[in-house]
């Protein structure tokens, strides 16, 4: 019998290791982890390429332009490129590299894709309004005992719990 419990790392051990990675980020660079900030850089850089005039005059995108460097030459962009590499290495070792749409058998691929797109759009939008996502605002913020970190964490998980019932058919 295959013991499915050994497929992934023990979650508490993984948590300690993730905490040590986060601690290393603080120790080396004075800042925590992040993800949505890199996506923002990608959006700003793309808008700048498509219409540089609009990008610099837009009061949000313009904030990240005009410096000596491209918005892509940022800490979070390089960190997220690392996440891609690290995730790939782990997946390769664990034999989990496979193109697939993961979903409940109760829903179609099409529905899963539409939900992923809508969910992503909400998360992307919310991460800008909330000045960071689960990594940068919640996890890193909690480690430095920031009020913003705890508030963001409670709002993200609290809302997901509150809405879980209405979206249950998509998952269970």
């Amino acid at each position, binding site marked *: 019998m295959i013991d499915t419990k050994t497929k992934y790392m023990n979650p508490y051990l993984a*948590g300690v290791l993730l*905490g*040590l990675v986060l601690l290393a980020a603080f120790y080396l660079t004075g800042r925590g982890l992040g993800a949505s900030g890199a996506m923002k850089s990608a959006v700003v850089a793309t808008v700048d390429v498509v219409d540089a005039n609009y990008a610099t005059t837009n009061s949000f995108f313009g904030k990240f332009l005009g410096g000596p460097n491209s918005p892509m030459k940022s800490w979070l962009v390089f960190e997220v490129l690392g996440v891609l590499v690290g995730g790939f290495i782990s997946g390769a070792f664990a034999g989990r590299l496979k193109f697939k749409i993961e979903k409940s058998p109760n829903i179609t691929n099409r529905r899963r894709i539409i939900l*992923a797109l809508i969910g992503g759009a909400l998360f992307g939008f919310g991460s800008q309004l909330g000045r960071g996502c689960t990594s940068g605002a919640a996890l890193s913020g909690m480690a430095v005992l920031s009020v913003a970190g705890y508030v963001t964490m409670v709002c993200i998980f609290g809302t997901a719990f509150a809405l879980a019932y209405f979206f249950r058919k998509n998952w269970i």
Partner: protein
Amino acid sequence: MAPIIPLNGYTEELNLLAAFLIGIGFGFVLEQAGFSSSRKLAGMFYGYDITVLKVFFTAAITAMVGLIFLNYLGLIDMSIVYINQYYIKSAIVGGVIMGAGFIIGGFCPGTSVCAAAIGKIDAMIFIGGSLIGIFIFGLTYDWLEPLYNDAFVGAPKLSEELGIKDGLLAFAVIFMAVMMFWLGEKAEKMFKRDDISKEI
């Protein structure tokens, strides 16, 4: 003395190399923990798999305790470490919107990148959605700006707000986390879904 790179004025190139290496560690651990699976992440909200709770809180506690000790031993200058700025309204509204995105889309930005790295197509679409969401935020920024910048209270620490020492708050957070782990482990048995668990 830490933070090493800003204090020693190392070059931006070295800082970006550190970012890349830290990212590799971040992505590797997320994937090892199973955060590359949307159904495993969503399990948290239905009780059949509370890996998210265990990993997330253990990580936050580890880094929190590590920083407190480094600070206590005088090995890190916490005045240079970034503390998140708190804009009360946008933090709450943004967090609520992100929570909706989480249960609808099944990922958050970091986990979507990790899942896309091993070939999850739903994660790639989630990233595409995130880019669209950020673009829409930029387009509507002028209209959102009053909310975005309202109720700014600086970068308060929870321990200062409560008027307690960092160590005591850390102890309280650890206590609550252990209680949640205990409850969560019970929930995992109560809402067990072997059909889902063997697939993810």
